[in-house]
C-alpha cells in the first residue's frame, strides 16, 4: 500500500525566544525556514509582493491633486517614455523646449532658493512624502529669512536636471526632491539633492543629498526642517558638497 502523503510538521526553532531576538535586531528576512531547500510559500510570496510594489513604484505617477494642492506646475524632460527614461539617463537631464519656455515665463528669476520636485524612479515616493517635507521646509526658510522662488514639478527628471534649471533661473541654491530607486523595504523613499549655484558642468561632488526620507526612515517633517538649515548653511558659505565640508572642518 502506498503511503498517504503527509505534510511535514511545522517548524519550531531550537529557541523561539532566541529567534525573536535575532529577528528584532535586523530588518533582514531571517528565521524564515524552508520547504526542502526552497523558501516557504508564504515567505516566497511575501518577497514577490514587495518586489511587485517596488516595480509598480517605478511606473507610478505623481497625482494632479498633490501638485495642485502644493501649487506646483508641471514641465517635462526629454525622457520620452519610461523605457527611454530608464535606458537614457542623459535624456532625463535635459528639459524640453516647451519646459524651458514655461519655466522662463512662470518662474521668478535669480531666486535665492529654488525648489524643484521630480518623480525620478518613484512617483509614489513624492506622493507619500513631499507634503510634510515641503511644508516643513517652507517654515524653515521663513525662520531663516530665506526667500523661495517659484516651485515646480519636473516629470521624468534625473538629479542632474538641477544644472539646466539652475542655469535658466540663475538660482543661488537649488533643492530637488526626487523619488529614489525603489527597494523592497520601501518603494516610496525620497531624496533631497542640494547644490549651490548649479550650472552646466557642475561636478557631482558639489551636490549634497539627504536620502531615505520616508515613514520608516528619516521622517519627512523633520527632514524638511533640516534641509532648510542646510540651505541656509550653503548660502552662508557660498558652497555645497565636498567644498562645503572642507570649509566647515
Amino acid at each position, binding site marked *: 500500500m502506498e503511503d498517504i502523503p503527509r505534510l511535514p510538521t511545522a517548524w519550531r526553532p531550537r529557541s523561539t*525566544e532566541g529567534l*525573536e*531576538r535575532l529577528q*528584532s*535586531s535586523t530588518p533582514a528576512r531571517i528565521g524564515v525556514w524552508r520547504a526542502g531547500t526552497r523558501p516557504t510559500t508564504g515567505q516566497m510570496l511575501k518577497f514577490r509582493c514587495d518586489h511587485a510594489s517596488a516595480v509598480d513604484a517605478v511606473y507610478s505617477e505623481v497625482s494632479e491633486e498633490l501638485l495642485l494642492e502644493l501649487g506646483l506646475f508641471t514641465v517635462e524632460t526629454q525622457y520620452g517614455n519610461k523605457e527611454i527614461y530608464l535606458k537614457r539617463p542623459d535624456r532625463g537631464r535635459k528639459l524640453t523646449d516647451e519646459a524651458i519656455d514655461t519655466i522662463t515665463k512662470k518662474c521668478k528669476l535669480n531666486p535665492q532658493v529654488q525648489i524643484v520636485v521630480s518623480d525620478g524612479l518613484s512617483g509614489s515616493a513624492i506622493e507619500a512624502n513631499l*507634503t*510634510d*517635507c515641503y*511644508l*516643513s521646509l517652507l*517654515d*524653515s526658510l*521663513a*525662520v531663516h529669512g530665506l526667500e523661495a522662488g517659484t516651485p515646480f514639478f519636473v516629470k521624468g527628471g534625473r538629479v542632474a536636471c538641477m544644472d539646466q534649471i539652475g542655469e535658466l533661473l540663475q538660482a543661488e541654491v537649488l533643492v530637488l526632491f526626487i523619488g529614489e530607486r525603489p527597494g523592497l523595504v520601501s518603494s516610496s523613499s525620497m*531624496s533631497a539633492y542640494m547644490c549651490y549655484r548649479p550650472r552646466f558642468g557642475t561636478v557631482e561632488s558639489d551636490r549634497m*543629498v*539627504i*536620502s*531615505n526620507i520616508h*515613514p520608516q526612515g*528619516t*521622517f*519627512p*517633517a*523633520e*527632514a*524638511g*526642517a*533640516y534641509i*532648510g*538649515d542646510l540651505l541656509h548653511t550653503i548660502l552662508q558659505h557660498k558652497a555645497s558638497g565636498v567644498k562645503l565640508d572642507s570649509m566647515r572642518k
Partner: protein
Amino acid sequence: MILVDNAWILSVGIDVGTSTTKLIVSRLRIDQVSGPGAIPKHEIVGRELLYVGPLHGTPLLSEEEIDGSALSEIIREEYVKAGIRAADIQTGAVIVTGETATKGNASTIVRLLAEQAGDFVVATAGAELEGILAGKGAGADGRSRVLKGVVANIDVGGGTANVAFFRNGQWIDTVTFHVGGRVIRMNERGKVLKVSPHIVPWLTVNGFLITPGQILKYGQWEEICNRMSRDMLRYLAGQEASLTWHQLLLGPALANRYPVEEWTFSGGVGELMGKPLPESLDGSSAYGDIGPILARSLARASESLGLNLGLPDQTTRATVIGAGTQSIELSGATVFVEESMLPIRNLPVLKLDLAESGSSSFMGMKEAAAKLIRQGNIWYGQSNPDEATFAIAIGSVGYYSYRSIQDLAKSLLEAYREEEPDNHKMVLICEQDMAKALGQSIYRQSGYEMRIVCLDEIRARQGDYIDIGQAPSGTWIPVTVKTLAFHSAAQ
C-alpha cells in the same frame, strides 16, 4: 566646553558612599554614527577609563555628618594623582549614595563638590539614580540590549542594595532595600558593634532581637543574612514574598514585575560574591561587618531561586564608573536651540500626556499643556517670570505629519501665552526625532518671539531633572537626565 581633542570629552565620576568614597576619570569618544545621505547623528561610541582612584573611607564628622573639607581634600589629591585640573573636565557626576545621601547636609556637600569637581559636573543624589548608574557601570544596560530582554543589576554596598531593571538598553524600573554589608557591624568574635536604625524594624518583626555588645554564633549571623537575602530576592524574582520583605524597602516598591533574563550583582558585597569565602567568623570578619556573610547568603539564595546570574563588568566601582561614564547622553542631531539659553542646569521635567499614539495625538493638546504648566508653576514656582522653570517632555507617537506638528506647536504656544504671558522661554524634550520641526514651528507661530531649546531623542520622565550642556561644534548637545535628584528638596 573645551575638547580634549576632536571627539573625546573628559568625564569624572565621584561616588561618596556610606562607607567608601571613590573617584574615577574617564574619557568618552563621540563619533558620527550616520552614513552618507543621512542626517548626521552622533553617539558616545567609546568609554575609556583613564584613572581609577583607590577606595577612601568616607570622612565623617559624626555618624550623621560628612566632613566636607576632608572630602574636598581627598578629591583635590585625586585630581593631582590623575593629572587633571577641574577646568579640563567637561562632564560627569558627583553622587552621594547609600545612607549618606539621606543625611541632612548631603545636598550642600554635593553643591560644594560640584564647584570643585569641574565646570560641567552634575550634582546629584538619590537611590534611584544610584541604582541606574550602578546598573550601567555593571553593564546591565548593554546586556539587556544584547539579550533583548530584561536584565536586573543589584548593587549591594554598605547601606543599601540598589536594584535597576533594564530592557533593550533602557532602564525601566528601580527599587532600593536596606540591605548592605554595613547595616550591622560586628567583630571577629561575632560581637554586635552597631545596628543601623533602618534595619531594626525588619530585624524586630523577624524576631532577631540583637543589640550592640551581644555575641552571635556564625550560624546565627548566617541565619540573619539568609533571611535578608531571601526576603529581597524572592520579591525581586516575583516569587511568593515573605510577610516581612517590605520592612527592608527604602522608598517605593517596583511599579511592575518583570521576567528577568539575567541578574548581575555589583557593589562591594557583589564583589565578594565572586570570591571563595571561609565559612567561619574568623574568615568573614575582615571588614568588621556582615558583608562577606551576606555575600554568601545572596549567592546561595540566588541559586535556590534559580536566578540566572551573569558576570558584571564592574563590581565595587560600578556606581562610580556609571556616574563617570554613563551619566550623559547626546541629543539627536536635528534640534532647535537658542544657544544663549545654554547651559541649563537642574531643570525639572513635566511630562505631557499624549492620549493616543499616532499623528492625531498631537491635536488639541492646549488644555493638557495649560494644565501641565499650571501644575509646574505650583510645584516649581516662578522666581523669574522670564525664565524657563521647567522643561516639558513629549513622548513618542510613531509617524507624525508636519500639520500635526504645527498643531502641537500651536497648542503649546497658546497654553504658554495663557498661563505665562510674560515668559518667552521654552524648554522641550522630545523622545522622538522631531525637535527641529517642532521648534521652528513654535518659533514661527510666535512671530519669532519665543526663545526655544527643543531637543530630541532624549527620554525623560515626570519628576526627572535635566542638565543641558553647550554644543561644542553645533552638532551634538550633551544632556544629563537625573532621576529624582533633589526631588524632595524641590517640591
